């Protein structure tokens, strides 16, 4: 230790290690190996296998944990399933008490958990102590509140059942809290697998569950690697999968769960933009960069890793940033004066090093802090590529390390263009003191979380989750809770009936000769971009009544027709930007025009075999449904979340953009209206695949669209063989969301095809839905499925 006199000269910080002996004792106590937490007991792997867990800062093994086998997972799911009936039947207040106890105990063990997290993950103690663990406690408090309120505030919903939850290594305990708290509040039971690099805080959490007397089986923790996760995903008794992790694994899970009926929420990768306009608080924004990309060693899914800086200030801004980089301290994460700790594992470190080398090889200019790095353990310095071009690898892929890229823009339009030029859409940070510019930019960026003059702000009351390939579903807020509830309406289905996929016959249909003056032949076409168009393939098929009578011909749409329809829908952006009131007027006008031609539509339905009463009622209900969604068009408000003081936190309902709507064979008019109206009321543009058996109500319907001022491209109709054209919709990367209301047997192929851009797919049994029932076939839940939530944080103060 240098003398006071020496230090007076150097004015160094000196070491400031956080004591870790209580945690080391705990690790020592478990030196024979940690076990799974199943059914309230700590049990060894059924296969006897274990794996080692390392402290990344010291590069040494500090624990051995059980290797989860498929049998372990099965035991855990059984325990969760056994616990579910009693747990879900508890009064909300009782569940609230348990969640409150967890929150309290997390607080009582806050330093223990912080130190353990830092030992296991390598993140600075400053972050685990000041950010991760307080947010964990906050999450349980917040959801203790929801447990209390669900019965009265979110009526007509019920828990899903056993939830399988798979979490990443970057915020181990926080991600656990984000998963477990809402699940338990809603009355579900869980099987959670922590990441193999960082399972220890989850196991400490299991001890807390035991400590507070949580009923056995409500929370089950199974440790293991990807194979263990796959067993959870595959387990038939798991009704919901919640996953946070890489986009690649998200795709695998989407594929694995295709057709299973499991509810799914995915929180995946990102390459989030950090936009600095010329009128920003530059020094504030520089600190923002530090919090954006050098927080948690850059191992943050929403890290602001792409700096997009207005050209006029970029030199000065980067100069300031470079100076700031020089004061970053990297080292022992238990030291209280450290900004960046260890990368979680040598594998990740090697990946970062490879990508940075590739960036340099591609001509990038790399700046790195020349801070000292410890000689052992996995460390990497704060890094920045300046003058990165969008074409370079480092500007495109998620590095998941402390490496940012910087590029410049000239105009706000270009900033938005660069920001959106990514397959991801998790978060964005916008720096300007001009509120008009800030909000205009926020409204245009395709991302689930927008931070104005800030970055990486989190709160249990605000939803977090992505657009596009950053996944779907939200965590936090009412919206996050709803991911763990099912509307009761979705559980009341008509009895199954054998609906065979109709075969569409393109050959001429033999009929009888007409002796009197024949009716003028009618030609039903596809409807694309506001125009009637012939099917690209040049084929039509004969639509028949149930008794086999030919009713007319419909165009047999193919891949190219879908492509054209999606293009037309993509172009009709204006619709999404219109005021709800304007959209409502168009919807009301549709009802007006349908009403004027009600008898024609009734006749069409009757010709398809419906009784007069049924046909009349279907048209009448369609009219009402139009009014219903016209009414909603200007009322499906977002929310203002109560997060932190002086932080306006607004959740907006934004349309997806282009939606594919695959309508049921049954209720050929009403089924379509029930799907199209909520989607377009919210501002989506849609590509509709109408009833395969009775598409002529849909083709009649485009005349209603034509006369109701529906702009071209907002509703596009492609008739044809459902499973074929739907597959093209499902794998089309410019379709942002898909509803598929057809027999369950068809879901697997559609959901599996959606993995390209990871669009959310809502599959439901349109064949078993009572479309005439308001309870079953209309409601705000349709609007929720037609929108995605963008959370905008606007800290304010002067």
């Amino acid at each position, binding site marked *: 230790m240098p003398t006071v*006199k020496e230090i007076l000269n150097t*004015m160094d910080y*000196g070491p400031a290690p956080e004591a870790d002996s209580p945690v080391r004792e705990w690790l020592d106590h478990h030196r024979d190996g940690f076990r799974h937490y199943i059914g309230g007991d700590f049990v060894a792997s059924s296969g006897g296998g274990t794996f080692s867990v390392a402290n990344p800062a010291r590069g040494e093994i500090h624990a051995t944990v059980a290797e989860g086998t498929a049998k372990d997972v099965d035991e855990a799911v059984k325990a969760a399933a056994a616990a579910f009936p009693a747990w879900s039947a508890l009064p909300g207040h009782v569940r609230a008490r348990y969640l409150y106890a967890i929150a309290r105990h997390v607080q009582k063990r806050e330093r223990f958990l912080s130190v353990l997290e830092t030992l296991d993950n390598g993140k600075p103690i*400053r972050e685990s*102590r000041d950010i991760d663990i307080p947010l964990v406690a906050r999450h349980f408090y917040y959801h203790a509140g929801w447990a209390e309120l669900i019965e009265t505030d979110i009526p007509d919903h019920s828990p899903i059942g056993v939830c399988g939850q798979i979490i990443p290594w970057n915020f181990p305990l926080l991600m656990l809290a984000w998963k477990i708290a809402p699940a338990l509040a809603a009355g579900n039971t869980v099987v959670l697998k922590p990441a193999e690099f960082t399972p220890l805080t989850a196991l400490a959490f299991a001890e807390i569950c035991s400590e507070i007397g949580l009923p056995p089986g409500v929370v089950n923790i199974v440790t293991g690697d990807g194979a263990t996760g796959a067993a959870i995903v595959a387990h038939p008794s798991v009704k919901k999968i919640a996953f946070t992790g890489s986009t690649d694994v998200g795709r695998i899970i989407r594929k694995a769960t295709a057709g299973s009926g499991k509810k799914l929420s995915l929180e995946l990768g990102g390459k989030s933009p950090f936009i600095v306009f010329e009128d920003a608080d530059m020094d504030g*924004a520089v600190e923002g960069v530090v919090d954006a990309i050098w927080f948690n060693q850059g191992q943050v899914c929403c890290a602001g890793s792409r700096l997009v800086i207005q050209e006029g200030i970029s030199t000065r801004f980067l100069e300031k940033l470079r100076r700031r980089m020089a004061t970053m301290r990297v080292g022992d994460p238990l030291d*209280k004066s450290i*900004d960046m700790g260890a990368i979680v594992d040598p594998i990740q470190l090697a990946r970062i090093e490879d990508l940075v080398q590739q960036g340099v090889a591609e001509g990038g200019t790399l700046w790195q802090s020349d801070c000292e790095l410890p000689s052992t353990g996995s460390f990497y310095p704060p890094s920045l590529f300046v003058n990165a071009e969008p074409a370079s690898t480092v500007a495109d892929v998620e590095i998941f390390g402390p490496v940012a890229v910087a590029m410049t823009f000239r105009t706000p339009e270009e900033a938005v263009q660069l920001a959106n030029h990514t397959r991801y859409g998790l978060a964005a940070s916008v720096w300007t003191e001009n509120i008009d510019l800030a909000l205009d930019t926020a409204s245009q960026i395709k991302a689930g979380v927008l931070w104005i003059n*800030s970055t990486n702000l989190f709160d249990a009351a605000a939803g977090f989750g992505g657009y596009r390939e950053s996944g779907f579903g939200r965590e936090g807020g009412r919206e996050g809770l709803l991911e763990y509830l099912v509307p009761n309406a979705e559980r009341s289905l008509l009895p199954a009936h054998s609906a065979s996929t109709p075969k569409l016959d393109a050959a001429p249909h033999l009929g009888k000769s007409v002796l009197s003056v024949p009716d003028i032949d009618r030609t039903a076409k596809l409807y694309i971009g506001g125009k009637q168009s012939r099917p690209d393939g040049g084929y039509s098929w004969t639509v028949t009544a149930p008794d086999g009578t030919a009713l007319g011909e419909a165009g047999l749409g193919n891949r190219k027709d879908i492509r054209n329809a999606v293009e037309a829908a993509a172009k009709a952006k204006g619709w999404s930007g219109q005021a709800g009131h304007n959209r409502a007027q168009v919807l009301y006008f549709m009802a007006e025009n349908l009403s004027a031609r009600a008898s024609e539509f009734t006749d069409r339905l009757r010709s398809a075999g419906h009784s007069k009463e049924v046909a009349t009622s279907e048209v009448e209900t369609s009219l009402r449904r139009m009014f219903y969604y016209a009414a909603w068009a200007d009322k499906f408000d977002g929310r203002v979340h109560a997060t932190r003081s002086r*932080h306006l936190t607004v959740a907006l309902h934004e349309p997806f953009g282009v939606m594919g709507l695959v309508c049921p064979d049954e209720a050929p008019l009403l089924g379509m209206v029930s799907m199209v109206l909520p989607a377009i009321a919210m501002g989506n543009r849609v590509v509709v695949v109408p009833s395969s058996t009775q598409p002529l109500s849909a083709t009649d319907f485009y005349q209603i669209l034509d006369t109701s001022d529906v702009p071209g491209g907002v509703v596009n109709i492609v008739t044809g063989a459902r499973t074929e054209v739907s597959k093209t919709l499902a794998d089309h990367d410019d379709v942002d969301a898909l509803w598929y209301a057809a027999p369950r047997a068809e879901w697997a192929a559609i959901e599996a095809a959606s993995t390209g851009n990871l669009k959310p797919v809502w599959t439901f049994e349109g064949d078993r839905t009572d479309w005439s029932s308001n309870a079953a076939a209309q409601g705000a839940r349709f609007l929720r499925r037609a929108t995605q939530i963008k959370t905008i944080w606007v800290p304010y103060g002067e």
Partner: protein
Amino acid sequence: MKTSPKKSASSSKPAVDDAPSKISLPALTHAHHTRNAGTALQLDWFETVQVNLSATERRTATLGGRRTVKKTYQAAWLVKALQCIDLTTLAGDDTPGRVHRLAAKARRPIRADIVEALGLSDAPPTVGAVCVYPTMVGPAVKALEGSGIPVASVATGFPTGLTPLDQRLAEIRYAVDMGAGEIDIVINRSQVLRQEWTALYDEICAMREACGPAHLKAILGTGDLRTLRSVYKASMVAMMAGSDFIKTSTGKEDVNATLPVSLTMLRALRDYGDLTGEKVGFKPAGGLKTAKDAMNWLILMKEELGREWLEPNLFRIGASSMLADIERQLEHFVTGRYASASHHALA
């Protein structure tokens, strides 16, 4: 990129090491502070500046969690803080006797046994300066004779600065004539609130001229300015007009030195340095009472401006009660026992 502590340490040793025994020039402790030459008024350097309050607060709120100093390092840092203190009395009941007692404390701010235990007996630390009203400069200079500790005087209609300019300038000349080595002027806040930058600049230039060899420390009265943008702009104008230090507060406003205000001033100071090459000092004053406050501000200085700004030639703390807390902390470091204020000399 990394600032080498060794390099900066050798270029600016603690002022006490160089304190000469004669007192003919009260400004001698500034030997290593090249004065700020100032510049013409450049409106485009600051008129469009933006300071975001929430972002500034986030930085200052997290800073205390990002850096900490423990054990021997903490003791050394507290000694450093002490060396940067402008030990101040600015009360209506100040008398020569009161000033004499303060000066005695300034000479020997730490009990000798503690100094010895810290290993500093060969060059016992003293405070940075003693700060008084103009009429107390004479008694203070006399009481500090031979110590090398400069006397700072507030002036220019302290604390509001709203007396006629002639009188304010005369007050400066009086204090300088009485032997003050540093003049803590107050700016005319109405000129900031009304954005009268030329008038503000001209007044401070006149004050700088009136100071002659004495160093000019400009008190911005940030509690009156309210917005951080105004704080930044006033800082810039004060530096352009040749202030050697910029200082937050008189201690008499409703809100005195805060970390967000200090951070904003430091950023202005850094920008000014980038534009001119000049080094300007910083002095937070008012509301800093504890050793913990001292550490927070030292950390802020080191993080934002670097090692060089941890010396009394570029950093002062305007305080009166802080010293007592630092003494108690140092005693605790030396003995391992918690200390009583009554065991230390009164200031």
